[in-house]
């Protein structure tokens, strides 16, 4: 047992992954001596050398494109994209190459690439540093998408992602990098593809992931003070989703609210709402509501808290659902 921040838990998990398999490489901008701008790769260069922890030229398409070639040669690259807003120069390689090569090759080529992306807002940053682009990747067949919300999951999920033979986009909730928790490094981890009941409740279900899990836990704590028991489902895997856990909860409470930072329009939250409705039609007492970002570019940081889903907006939605 150790008390770790989420960032440190990722760091420890990566270290374990590199120890376990000499084919694991870490690559990206500033991941070497600097240890990454969030220090998630801190110390790895020193311990595993520059051949396994590669400071790359400043070109995201290059990072992902060369990772494809390294994979064909038998390596397992873990690519860091420095911030969510900088994944787009690599989007072509991710969507047309990484996502399709296993299919294109009839299964002959495996691309065990992990693409780490710190994402989400709330850190007072400038433009392009607070995006939530998960929908783009979840909509892309051939990719898998996961996100952690707490140090223990961070520690285990990054190792599971690196060990997975499919390409995985691994979203890290950057505003939670400094959240601390006990991590039991000896336990055995939950299935990477399972959702987690982060809090049990009976009155309504909050379906959420990544940075919004804490927001939802805080909202449910506040709701509990007023006698309302909210269940919080932390999806963890965004593609594919562990639907059974989601449906079971939604059927139990009869009310579902999806909470995420991304603009709700054509989002992952839309998928959750659509599917929960389809599969739980007769159990729902109210339509699935969504609390998320607005359909605007991510705003200047001095108003970002108005943009992001917070405790009040979540509780407001709960009120609307239950009062429907």
């Amino acid at each position: 047992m150790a008390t770790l921040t989420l960032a440190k838990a990722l760091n420890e998990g990566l270290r374990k992954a590199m120890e376990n398999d000499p084919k694991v490489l870490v690559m990206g901008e500033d991941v070497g001596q600097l240890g990454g701008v969030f220090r998630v790769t801190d110390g790895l260069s020193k311990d595993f050398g520059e051949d396994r922890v590669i400071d790359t030229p400043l070109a995201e398409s290059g990072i992902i494109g060369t990772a494809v070639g390294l994979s064909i040669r038998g390596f397992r690259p873990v690519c860091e994209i420095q911030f969510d807003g900088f994944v787009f120069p690599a989007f072509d390689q991710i969507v047309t190459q990484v996502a399709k090569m296993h299919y294109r090759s009839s299964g002959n080529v495996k691309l065990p690439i992990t693409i780490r992306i710190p994402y989400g807002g709330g850190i007072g940053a400038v433009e392009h540093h607070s995006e939530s682009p998960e929908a783009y990747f979840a909509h892309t067949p051939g990719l898998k998408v996961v996100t952690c919300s707490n140090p223990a999951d961070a520690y285990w999920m990054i190792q599971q992602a690196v060990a997975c033979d499919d390409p995985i986009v691994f979203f890290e909730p950057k505003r939670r990098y400094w959240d601390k928790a006990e991590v039991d490094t000896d336990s055995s981890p939950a299935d990477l593809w399972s959702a987690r009941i982060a809090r049990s409740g009976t009155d309504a279900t909050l379906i959420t992931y990544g940075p919004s899990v804490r927001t939802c836990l805080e909202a449910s704590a506040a709701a509990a003070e007023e006698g309302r028991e909210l269940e919080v489902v932390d999806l963890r895997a965004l593609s594919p989703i562990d639907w059974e856990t989601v449906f079971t909860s939604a059927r139990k409470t009869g009310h579902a609210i999806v909470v995420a930072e991304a603009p709700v329009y054509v989002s992952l939250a839309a998928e959750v709402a659509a599917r929960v409705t389809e599969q739980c039609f007769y159990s729902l007492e109210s339509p699935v509501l969504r609390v998320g970002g607005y359909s605007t570019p991510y705003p200047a940081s001095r108003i970002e808290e108005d943009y992001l889903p917070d405790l009040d907006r979540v509780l407001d939605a709960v009120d609307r659902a239950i009062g429907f």
Partner: protein
Amino acid sequence: MTEVLLPQPSEGPGFVQLLTPEGQRVEHPDYALDISDDEIKSLYRDLVMVRRIDTEATALQRQGQLGLWASLLGQEAAQVGAGRALTERDFAFPTYREHGVAYCKGVDPVTLLGLFRGASQGGWDPNENGFGLYTIVIGSQTLHATGYAMGIQRDGGDGAAMAFFGDGATSQGDVNEAFVWAGSFNAPIVFFCQNNQWAISEPVERQSHIPLYRRAEGFGFPGVRVDGNDVLAVLAVTRAALARAREGSGPSLVEAYTYRMAPHTTSDDPSRYRLAADLETWKLKDPVERVKAYLSRHGVADASFFADVSAAADELAAHVRAACIEMADPEPLSLFDHVYAGGSSLLDEERAGMAAYLASFEGESPAAAKLNVGAH
């Protein structure tokens, strides 16, 4: 408007040629090629085989057996020269037109046809022959090749990677990023650009006003322009570049100066954008004919040799034709195969749904099939 399109001089200092269009051997100070007549005969054979595959595929497309074909006509020497320079240790990353390289690397042409027929997306195992999957998104494969070369550096392998791409591709960000990376990591890679003068309807002058091989200088590694219709010159230059890469001296760029004698693909109509006269000029530089001229003139090969090669080519063509026509369509449910190495609950659900749906027709064919709706 001050825009100008300057013609690129085809020859000039550094233009490497070892066999003239008339079939005359010439020397080049930097690229001596010690080659036996038997080897030249075998190169000739490859050129003929590759051209024959191409002709057959074009015919198959006309007959509706292929959805599309991207002809390599005119580029046989560039591809056979590079393909034969590659050894088993080396790995080739092709575009969609490298049928000649595939042939030299031992890939069954029928496999390639599967893609153009629409029966697969490629599907071969790149590691079987060191020949990557066809890549349609222009330039992507150059980064894959660079990464592969970085992998060779890291696992102590002694081969090199070779990235194929066209003149049009040199404008893509990815290709230039590959140059940056290869230079930065001093990676064992050869960038092999077939400048066939055209990117669909656009002449190479739209991409660059100076010869393409010169792009390499600015990234810190050498570039060379070779007569892409001269199989000996391409072989010599590419071998040298591969040797350089393997010995740790880093990347280089080979520009094979050639001409796309066919339409871009079978869907294209070049009469809209280029003069038939240009084609005539280039016919005089035909890559196959000049080797034949050399072999004949020097009495290295006689009529029976040429007849044998021709017969072998016909035989291969017949094999390709038969195998193509027999190629079964994939099963509908195979849609779901190989999306992931580790499967996916989402796909399992979709597959089950489709299976149930298909089963619901039980013998009677769906209305869409009856109406032939949506099939174009």
